[in-house]
C-alpha cells in the first residue's frame, strides 16, 4: 500500500505519544557524577552533623564549666593575695631577730657571780633597723668587776650577738655595797639576719 500522509492535529494524541516514547538515556558519566555528588553531600552532611553534635556538647560542657572557671579565677586571685601576704610574712619572719638562741647563749655567757636584773629591748619591733638591748645586772663577789668585764668580752666574742649587734658597750659600772651594778648596751644599726 502507498504510504499514507500521517497528519494528526490531536493534542491528546501528541500527549499520549510523548508519554509512550522511551525516555532518553542519561549519559552514564552524568549519572555517576550525580551519584558521586549525592554521596559526597551525604558524607559531608554526616560530618557536619557529627561536628555540630560535638560542638553543642562542648558548648554545654563549657557552660557547665563556666561556674568552675569563675571559681578558679577567684581562687587564683585569692591564692595570689595569700602568696603576697605569705611573702610579706616570710620577709618579716626572715627579718626578725630571733631571740631564743640568743637568750640561751646569753645565759651561757653570763659568768657565775653575775646575774641580770633587767633586760630591755627598744624598740620592740624585731624588724626595726636599729635596735638596742639594754642589760642591767649585778655582780657580787670579790671579782665582781672583772666578771663584768669578762661578761662583756664573752658577748663581744659570741657570734650570735656580733652577727646581729655591731656594738657591745659597757655603759656604766657602779658599786652598791659589795655588789657591782652594771649597765650594758648592745646595739645594732642595720638589719641582722
Amino acid at each position, binding site marked *: 500500500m*502507498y504510504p499514507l*500522509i*500521517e*497528519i*494528526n*492535529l*490531536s493534542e*491528546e*494524541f501528541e500527549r499520549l*505519544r510523548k508519554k509512550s516514547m522511551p525516555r532518553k538515556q542519561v549519559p552514564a558519566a552524568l549519572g555517576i557524577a550525580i551519584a558521586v555528588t549525592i554521596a559526597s553531600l551525604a558524607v559531608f552532611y554526616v560530618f557536619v552533623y557529627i561536628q555540630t553534635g560535638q560542638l553543642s556538647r562542648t558548648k554545654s560542657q563549657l557552660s557547665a564549666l563556666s561556674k568552675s572557671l569563675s571559681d578558679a579565677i577567684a581562687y587564683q586571685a585569692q591564692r595570689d593575695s595569700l602568696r603576697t601576704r605569705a611573702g610579706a610574712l616570710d620577709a618579716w619572719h626572715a627579718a626578725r631577730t630571733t631571740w631564743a638562741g640568743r637568750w640561751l647563749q646569753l645565759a651561757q655567757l653570763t659568768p657565775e657571780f653575775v646575774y641580770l636584773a633587767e633586760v630591755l629591748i627598744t624598740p620592740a619591733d624585731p624588724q626595726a633597723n636599729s635596735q638596742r638591748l639594754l642589760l642591767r645586772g649585778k655582780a657580787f663577789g670579790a671579782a665582781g668587776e672583772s666578771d663584768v668585764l669578762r661578761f662583756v668580752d664573752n658577748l663581744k666574742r659570741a657570734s650570735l650577738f656580733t652577727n646581729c649587734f655591731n656594738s657591745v658597750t659597757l655603759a656604766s659600772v657602779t658599786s652598791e655595797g659589795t655588789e657591782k651594778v652594771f649597765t650594758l648596751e648592745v646595739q645594732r644599726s642595720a638589719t641582722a639576719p
Partner: protein
Amino acid sequence: MLGLWKRKRGITLTIDVGSSALKFLVTSGSYPDNFVVRDFRMVHTSAAGKQLSAGDLSAVLRHTLSQLNIATPDVRTVISGRQAVVRIVELPRTSREELRKSVAFQLSRYVPLNPEESVFDCAALAQAPARDGWQKCMVVASRRTVVDAINELLRTVNLTALMLDVEPICVINAFLAAVDDFDREEGIARIESGGIGLLHMGSAHTDVCILRGRVPVACRSLDMGEMDVIKDYATQQRIEYPEALAAYQQAGEMAPEVRTAYTRCLGRILAEVKTSFEYCKREFDFSCERLYLTGGMADKVGAAALAKDLHGVPAFRFNPFVKVEVNALDQRIGEFRAVMGAFTPALGVAIRALGL
C-alpha cells in the same frame, strides 16, 4: 459477555463533522487485510440550510452513539477542509520531530495564521521528488478555536479525539490506499506520473486535490457544494430549501430540473479545477488525465459522466471501499454503497494506524 468485550475492544469509531451531516463509521481490524465496516450512520444536521448549535450537535451525537451502542472512549475525527490550511512546501530532509520544530519556528511563513493561535502538524511526502538534501512536506494548520470546539463537542459525550485529521488529507489517504485496486476493478490503466484531479464534493465546499501519479502537488478548497445545487434548484423552482433538499435527496436518477442545477454547480467547480490544472501545466508541466470524484455530490447517479462531459477527461466516482469488507452491514450494504462517497474522509482517517 467476554466475546462481546473482546469484539468491542478492536472497534474504531470515526466521526466526520460535516457541514450538513454527521457521518459515523464503525470499523474493526487493520487495513487492508481484515478491515471491516461494522456500522455507519449519516445524520443530516442542516435540513433548513443552517448549522446546528453546539448543544444540538451534542444531543445528536449522544443519541447516535446510543444507537450505535459504542463504548469506546477514543474517536477519530475530521476537520473540514475550509477550516484548515494545507500547504506543500520543500524543507531540508530531517526527522519528523526536527521537521515539526522547524515548521513551528516559522509557521507564519507557510500558512496565513497566527502561530500562537494555531494548531499544526506536518509530514514528509517520502515519494515526492525533491532536490538533494531536501524533501517535500505537507504542512497543515488550523485555528486553535476550531480544534478546541471539536474537542469540546466530543468531550460533552465523553469522547476524546485521538486522531484529528483534515478532510483533504483524509481524502488523499483514502485515495492512495485504494486507487490501485479501484483502477484494476474498473479496468482502467494506472496513471504513473500524469495529473490526477481528486475532487471531494461535500455539502458546503469542495476539496480539490491535485496529484501527479501518487504524489500530492496541491490542495484547494472551493466554497461550492451540494448546498449550492439545492439553493440553485430552490431559486429556479421558487420553492423553500427543505422542499428542494427533499427533491435533491431522492434516490435514483436526478430529475431534469435538479440535474440542470447540478450541472451548473458542477460546471463551476470544474472550471476552478481547470484553472488549477492550467497552473500546474505552467509550473510543473503536467496536465489533467483523469478525475476521481468523491463526496456526497459525487454519489448522485450520473455525476461522473457529467464531469467527463464538462471537463473533457475521463471521470470516475471513486469507491474507496473497494478493498473493505462491508458484509457485516448485512441488509444495509446497498444503503451504504449509495452514500459511500460521503464516507471517504471518515475512511481515510479510519484506515490509519494510530502509531502509539
